[in-house]
């Protein structure tokens, strides 16, 4: 490697070993000619700016936005189709698991009522149509059910991307699937005396059904989806927060 190349790499601060860098620094101190050449290299490379690159045109940006939206819709549809393929067996199994879980937890709580004191952070329930406002923490919802519900709500948040689909059939299938699963959890909640939680799950239904309005514009759908996403997030936070506030005294 010649001096010109060494000086170039020295200017970039990259590509020289520690010993090479030290040696070059020492030489620059001792050799005025080399120092002058380095000054010239610095000036030359520092001034080596290419003219500004071209800007993206509006047509390019529109093409990228469209491609992104198409990819998102396609992936949501793929996800929905995957669910649909396994729906009969999957939903039957889910229903059986949720109901069995509910019965089992109900029996466990009945047995343990006298030996456990479960204290929850108490918040007064409010009468409201806002699903997120319905989780108040005043009910003794079993932790296992809360965890399963939290998982379901997280999955639902992911599935919301499918509501951006222009295809009303795809949206209908997705909404029906979410409502069906909500109802399964509502049954399990009611079996455990958690009426408030059951009501919360049913309260999502009108918001979900609103996304199926035939005259809904893309903007309307986005607003509904954001509303659902927000309320699911708030509900999740409250459920997980309540679980962590639960104190079980033996």
């Amino acid at each position, binding site marked *: 490697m010649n001096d010109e190349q060494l000086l170039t790499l020295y200017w970039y601060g990259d590509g020289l070993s520690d010993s090479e860098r030290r040696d070059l620094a020492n030489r620059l101190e001792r050799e005025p000619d080399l120092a002058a050449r380095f000054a010239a290299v610095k000036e030359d490379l520092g001034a*080596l700016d*290419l003219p500004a690159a*071209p800007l993206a045109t509006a047509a*390019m*940006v529109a093409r990228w936005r469209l*491609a992104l939206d198409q990819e*998102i819709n396609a992936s949501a549809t793929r996800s929905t189709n995957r669910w649909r393929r396994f729906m009969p067996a999957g939903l039957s199994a889910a229903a059986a698991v949720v109901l069995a879980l509910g019965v089992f937890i109900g029996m466990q709580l009945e047995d343990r009522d006298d030996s456990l004191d479960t204290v929850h952070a108490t918040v007064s329930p409010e009468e409201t149509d806002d699903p997120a406002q319905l989780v108040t923490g005043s009910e003794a919802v079993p932790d296992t059910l809360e965890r399963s519900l939290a998982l379901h709500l997280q999955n639902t948040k992911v599935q919301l991307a499918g509501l951006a689909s222009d295809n009303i059939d795809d949206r209908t299938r997705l909404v029906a699937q979410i409502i069906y699963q909500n109802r399964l959890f509502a049954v399990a909640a009611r079996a455990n005396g958690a009426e408030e939680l059951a009501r919360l799950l049913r309260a999502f239904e009108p918001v979900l059904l609103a996304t199926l309005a035939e005259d809904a514009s893309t903007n309307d759908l986005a607003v509904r989806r954001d509303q659902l996403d927000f309320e699911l997030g708030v509900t999740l936070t409250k459920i997980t927060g309540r679980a962590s506030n639960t104190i079980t005294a033996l």
Partner: protein
Amino acid sequence: MTSASHRSPPTQQQFHQAISSGADVWFGACFRITGDASLAQDAVQDALLNAWRKRRQFQGTARLETWIHRIAINSAIAVVRKHRPERWQPLDEEPEAATRSPLEAVIDEQMYGDLGQALSQLSDMERVCFVMKHLEEFRLKDIAVALDTSVGPVKQALFRALGKLRNRMTSLKGEV
């Protein structure tokens, strides 16, 4: 509750916001690497789709636009390799300058002026190494990884590119 590992992936809306603020920079970087507006458009689009598919890997330590920018650089390299394999020569050989059709040359000159002319003097390898080092400020070893080679050939391509550009840019300045 929110840590980097549990951060929510960026949303569709955040991606659209990133396009609004990052599109010019991504396209400029991809154009400099590919030397071709059409390939640069493809590279940006590939980068966006890849970024969306990998959005759960976004750690949130940098801005979303910056993360997509890095992906766009790699997409641009992949696009060049895919579309012009014959011009992707071994780095230790002296490659011929990029050959363009007369129509491409006229379009470049009309649309991109000095930049198009200057970059057209470089081979694909020289242009990629120069852009990644001098403009994008990658480490030499990172460039080598991206190009699936070692640091030595990257240095050689960079020195060749610098030599050509310094002469070319000086002469361009003289023309004005």
